[in-house]
């Protein structure tokens, strides 16, 4: 069986987020003045084969931790509701 998951990789709190800062600075010049705390991270969608969802999810967790993120600077989260 195949399962599709989405993983979000975000910078740890406290680290500078240049991309978020750049977007935040651009917003007011485009007329949006009430937006703040902008953070930019990565979104990874992948499809894995596995006997059941639990096993597949465990594999995705491991991939997220070991390949998709660097725990020194990033957190990851596997989305609760994988897309169909």
């Amino acid at each position, binding site marked *: 069986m195949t399962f599709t998951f989405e993983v979000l990789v975000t*910078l740890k*709190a*406290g*680290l*500078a*987020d*240049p991309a978020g*800062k*750049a977007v935040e*600075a651009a917003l007011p010049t485009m007329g949006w003045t009430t937006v703040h705390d902008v953070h930019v991270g990565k979104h990874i969608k992948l499809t894995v084969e596995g006997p059941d969802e639990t096993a597949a999810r465990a594999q995705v967790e491991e991939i997220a931790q070991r390949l998709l993120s*660097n725990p*020194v*600077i990033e957190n990851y989260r596997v989305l609760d509701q994988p897309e169909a």
Partner: protein
Amino acid sequence: MTPPEVGTAASPPHRQLGLQDDEYERIVATLGREPMPAELAMYGAMWSEHCSYKSSKIYLKTLPTEGAAVLVGPGQDAGAVDVGDGVAVVFKMESHSHPSAIEPYQGAATGVGGIVRDIISMGARPVALLDPLMFGPLTDARNRWLLDGVVAGIGGYGNCIGVPTVGGEIHFAEPHSANPTVDVMCVGIAQADKLATSASLVAHEGSFMVLYGASTGRDGIGGVSVLASATLDESSQGSRPAVQIGDPFAEKLLIEASLELIEQGSLEGLQDLGGAGITCAVSESAARAGMGARLNLDAVPLRQSGMEPFEILTSESQERMLAIVNPAQLTAVQEVCTKWGLDAVVIAELVPGGMLTVTHRGEVVADVPARSLTDEGPEYDRPREAPGTHPSAVGDDPTFAAFDADIAASFFSVLGSPNVASKRWIHQRYDSVVQGQTVAGAGSDAAVVRVPGTMKGLALATDGKGRYGSLDPYLGSAHAVAEAARNVAVTGATPLAITNCLNFGNPERPEVMWQFSEAIRGMADACKALGTPVTGGNVSFYNESGGSAIWPTPVIGMLGLLADYRMRVLTGFPRGGLAVYQLGETFAELGGGEFAEVVLGVVGGKPPAVEFDREAALIALLVEAAGEDLLASAHDCSDGGIAIALAEAAIEGGHGFAVTLTGVDLPPHVAMFSESASRAVVSVETANELRLRELAAARGVPIARLGETGGPRAVIEGMLDSTVDELRAVYEGALPALLDPA
């Protein structure tokens, strides 16, 4: 990171900050009382190995630093050299090995950012970057991940700030697996009379300290005291990772704003924020001015709420600068910063006396003599001890090992070894042309960069000789200086001065301290003999894990000068029909060489001798011959010996050669691969041969005609009969084969 007041009996707060018990006593004696928590953190950062140079200071003092052209020697953010026409060249090298080992992209990127700010703080525009690297073997997946991340980080930052990366080097060795060496050198140009030095800018009582650039966050706290001043094993245990995220866009704005401020003449001082953050910048600026300062932490723009005083004081958030500004100029300074979209706030004021007083929410959280942080830290003469058996005596010297394998096959092994092969996979990922002054980038022995508004060219090279250093740290260091000078001289440039980065293991181990002292001795001797004073540098200790250190590797960054950049000499054979000469003499010296490691599987023996007189004579000859426009090409002999030098000249220029390694009474493989110093391969028009011989004779440099350039073939009589295309395929193919997934 736990606040410093929370300690345990076994690990009192000062030890958690990396301070020894006697250092703590010294603080108590200085203050006449127990330090407050913020004060302790300040001393912890400023008296760290990284900031205080406490283990290296006594040795660094022995380096030659004087020279007619030297405008600024060691001690300031970067050294500066007068190149005439009213132009000063500012240059410096630094390491970011420790953070790169745990987060290669950001570690390397922020290293570039840091060295660039050192150059800006001298009032110079950064015009070139070079990136000397050492990694573990690429057969290991982790080393490939580290290298890819580091190269991407250097490019990601350097490419985004508009400073060309024009050179560097990379070597591979197992001891650098756990601790890759990531150094970066930046070169800047300033009007000599506008250099921002402690002599040219005078700060006054009542002047403001203006912090401009990025806001301050909790990142990088403990960067100097923990990450860079302890081994990876110690620092990774429990302590918070001290890696930061680089923002090259903010750095580009800092460059432009800072140079505009210098141009405007509104500053009384300029300082970058690096290790130890605000504490270091404020205390150094005050101590330099011979004053104290009142620092108000509430004025510091913070990225996060709830930051403790010690965090604000020691945060190493990137892309920040500190300007000393006369109150009358404050508006002008803030206008420039606003134009570039940067925050600029007064955080401190210079006051008479020498005390640095720090307040936070109306309370005094620190009150210490500024000089006690910057100039009165501990200084150690740590025990040193040569290893029982001198490593160069270990094993039989490969020079005399029996050898009966195929010599052409050996040649291709050496040519395709990662140490020798083309580094295009790396340097093609760097913007080497932005600013429009790059006459020669990677692929040339030294990069050549024009000085705008003049005919001058700067020749820039970096060299480290880790493998020689592992066998004999004196020789490794001396060779690094000699090779860097030679690399500059083959372009026709006169070597002027050096900067350096000293990459070593744990200085608390006597063997490492011995390596260090030997390396300093080698560098001092070489620099004196070659007339290239040391204008600055950086020391990176604690590059070790599990008790095993990196190879002791001083990396030299050499600055050379071409009076007319159009006279620069090419590295590759530019056409056929030229006479090929060897300058210098080949001896039986395979010890510590590339052939010995790759073909014989031996890292051992005695590295080649360095004779400074011979080196100086060769350099003088190269410069003189280039000045008379005699040389069609010139390439030095280094890793892999003359066989590799010939091959590289052919590949680079696209023209073949047919030569005989005559006049040497050496076994063929020794003649091919010996790494004797003070040699170069040059090509000359027939009409210039006589004059070149005359000049060589006058300088006492041995000279031998080896053959001619031309055609598609690459022939070394009796040893190699191949084609330039075949050579190129091996040379260019080696790194991609290891690094690119099939």
